[in-house]
């Protein structure tokens, strides 16, 4: 330390900094080599024996169906997941024409019209689409590009066991949620990022018409908590998963999941569904334009509408298959609810008003 004076010690300092510069050059060369290797394998093009499925992160791949697909076509399915459906769709739109994957799954009826911009999808439909009812298959331009895969009703799940332990009568209608009795008990997802969140928002618009903003203001005053994705809300904040909110926006087919994932501890779901809040949601798959393996991508879309995949959907993703006569597992037959009159708005109106609704929602809630 004493010898360190202000005289520039060129001899002592020069060699180490030369090493630094030299090391940098070597690292850069390695980086260049690695980059070339990278581009060849997983960067620009994928392996010849895989097909890439772009979806959101809470998507559970039906394993048995995936193995069957690999047996039939020789290609493995690689899942490329984004945090939530909003991020997934925007990322896909930003990379339209130069896509990150081959097939995209997770676009739903509320975001279908947005997916039509930017030439995102190829006009290809799975073979079962024609036989599906009009409410499931889309009309218009979207109807030529998106193949329905599953449907679920987005409803509020109510933790009955929590309410009975607190001796409070649970809410039964959307209007009840603004009641001070149920203050700080509801968690919803942000419509910006989450597709069930957007579906719930659209449901409130359908119910309250022009007064929907007042309804959300009342919800906010009543302590509603907003989370970015369904996973955050359901798996972290919902009381059944160990959180502190006994009311959550989830699916009508979520109660069976509680039994299935309880590893034998539960024989009955703890939750019921608030049918007054149910909004219908259908999820679609499409082939991305610019993929370098369109044939394989189309085969995957066909397969997703096929019996093996459809039969595994209930117990992997906890929604209903679209193809009629698909056998439903026992837990579903006992406890999954199909809403009789779900709230609904037609796709064209959603398409033109969606952005405005989201902006207004953000200015109230954020």
């Amino acid at each position: 330390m004493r010898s360190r004076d202000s005289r520039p010690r060129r001899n002592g300092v020069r060699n180490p900094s030369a090493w630094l510069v030299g090391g940098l050059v070597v690292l850069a060369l390695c980086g260049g080599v690695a980059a070339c290797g990278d581009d060849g394998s997983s960067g620009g093009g994928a392996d010849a024996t895989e097909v890439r499925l772009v979806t959101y992160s809470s998507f559970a791949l039906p394993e048995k169906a995936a193995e069957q697909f690999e047996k039939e076509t020789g290609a493995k399915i690689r899942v490329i997941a984004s945090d939530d459906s909003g991020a997934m769709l925007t990322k896909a739109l930003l990379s339209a024409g130069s896509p990150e994957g081959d097939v995209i799954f997770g676009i739903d009826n509320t975001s279908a019209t947005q997916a039509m911009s930017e030439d995102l999808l190829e006009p290809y439909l799975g073979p079962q689409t024609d036989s599906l009812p009009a409410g499931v298959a889309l009309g218009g331009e979207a109807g030529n590009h998106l193949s329905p895969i599953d449907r679920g009703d987005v409803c509020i799940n109510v933790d009955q066991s929590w309410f009975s332990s607190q001796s409070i009568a649970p809410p039964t209608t959307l209007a009840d949620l603004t009641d001070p009795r149920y203050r700080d008990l509801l968690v919803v997802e942000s419509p910006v990022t989450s597709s069930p969140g957007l579906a719930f928002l659209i449901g409130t618009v359908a119910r309250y018409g022009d007064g929907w903003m007042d309804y959300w203001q009342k919800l906010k005053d009543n302590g509603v908590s907003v989370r970015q994705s369904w996973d955050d809300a359901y798996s972290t904040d919902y009381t059944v998963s160990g959180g502190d909110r006994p009311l959550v926006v989830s699916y009508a087919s979520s109660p069976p999941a509680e039994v299935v994932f309880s590893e034998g501890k539960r024989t009955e779901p703890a939750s019921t569904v608030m049918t007054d809040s149910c909004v219908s949601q259908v999820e679609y798959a499409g082939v991305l334009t610019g993929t370098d393996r369109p044939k394989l991508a189309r085969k995957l879309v066909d397969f997703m509408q096929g019996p093996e995949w459809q039969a595994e959907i209930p117990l992997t993703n906890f929604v209903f298959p679209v193809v009629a006569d698909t056998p439903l597992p026992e837990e579903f037959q006992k406890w999954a609810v199909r809403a009789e009159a779900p709230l609904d708005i037609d796709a064209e109106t959603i398409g033109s008003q969606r952005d405005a609704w989201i902006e207004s929602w953000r200015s109230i809630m954020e």
Partner: protein
Amino acid sequence: MAIDHGVRPSADSVSDTGSESARTRPRRGRLAAGIAVGVVVVAIGLPVVAVAIRAAWVDGSIDGEAIGRILSEPRTWRLIAVTVGQAVVSAVITVVIGVPVAWALSRFRFPGRRPLRTLVVVPFVLPSVVVGAAFATVLGPSGPVDLRGTWFAVLAAHLCFNIAVVVRVVGAAVGGLDPGTEDAARTLGCSTLTAARRVVLPAIRPAVMSAAVVVFLFCLASFGVIVILGGGSVTTVEVEIWVRATRQFDLSGAAVLAVIQVVTVVAALALHSHFARRSPVVSGARRVPQRPPRGGFEWSAVAFASVVVLAVAGVPLAALVERSLRVPGGHGLEHWTNLGSVTAGTGLSISPLHAVLTSIATATTAAVIAVVVAVPAASAVARRPGGRADRVLLLPLGVSATTIGLGLLLLVGRPPIDLRGSWWLVPLGQALVAMPLVVRVVAPALASIPKSVPEAASLLGASPRDRWWRVDLPLARPAIGAGAGLALVACLGEFGATAFLTRSDRVTVPVAIERLMSRPGSAGFGQAMALSCILVLLCAGIVALIDHLAADDGFHLGF
């Protein structure tokens, strides 16, 4: 004028020699430097122009819809007020705590001084997501108190991040002062505190203001910290740009906000250069402190500085390490060993180790690009501190990383120039973000090289080429080495631009950390901590190396 002379002795001599060498320097050298400055300005200006165009021009026609929509929303103005407000508060807190720490660390010589000075710089060079992650463990659900989603956590993280600026900039000013003045005051009967208050403080005021404005700028454009620690109502314009572009697909709205951001930052920069003109870019030979602290006040100042540095920089880093080792049922290496494979349900499609390799590859490429472009520009600034090149090159500092990312996406993300699938896009974005930093670090180091040696070489008959190769370059090597090292560190941790440009199979470590952290309960969180530790080791190692190699008291942040 006498005071100015005292404060900037070398600045005078530099400008004298500068004009002389400007006359004798071959025109080719000046042209090269001018071109370099031009390249930096154009390289960073193009994305800004692309953003500005997109704000008002969609699909080939002028469309003011986005402008009207964004500007008429009260939420936008609330957001701008909150952004500026949190930056001001952060700057004030950092300066109030940082100035005493800077004084103590630069004035006295005590065991552990150099490690403390290096430790205080470490958070500054860490990626913002790592600092955010560290505070998320200390102040999050698994820590003693859960403050995530509040401004308090964000401000604490900002303090940790930016105290290095105050300590280094103000510390350099303190170190450049003649201790004789202070000692003279003390022989005349002042206590240390009074001497510090009445002698040191007025003299370093320009440096303090300059540091405060720089901290304000960094907090204005703060991105990674707020993405990790904020949520919902805790957000700024910078994060909003990102959310609009990548979650709402509202590119025009994002562009309008980016333009607003650039305008705000340029205004703050104008403020900064007003103060910078009065404060030395180079304050002469910085003296290494010679005397140990004496007396109660001085020792308590040193103790306060040590406690602050350890608490602000040491505790979060320690929390990172601890959390990375925490597995269900105690502690273990599970998260570390899982880094080599893809874990289902974590939101990553590639293994974290793959992300580390990608980061190293892109960062070194980006650092090489940044150094090659920025060093000639820095030499133009060094020739004339406070001159036109200096002021022009301050502007790129004002372009935030997200603006660069968005601009680059708009510029080269469409046919005919479609680089979206290209590996080079991310290094390019990182290089653009790192360039201004390299200029700011290398310029003062180049300026402090004694001009007498190269001029003596010329007088003795060395040709310009000989002189450049055998005298100028070796003298400049430490400065360039420091710039390269800092560029490497900045690119390793770059998040704002990369968040726009990355693709799922070519993820860098900061992006991987953000993805893994977005799901608190899962194994992904522990892996995010492990990745953060790796980044800390890499960045801190590089910075410690540079700091150690610097010829005098550590490298100088030339703001």
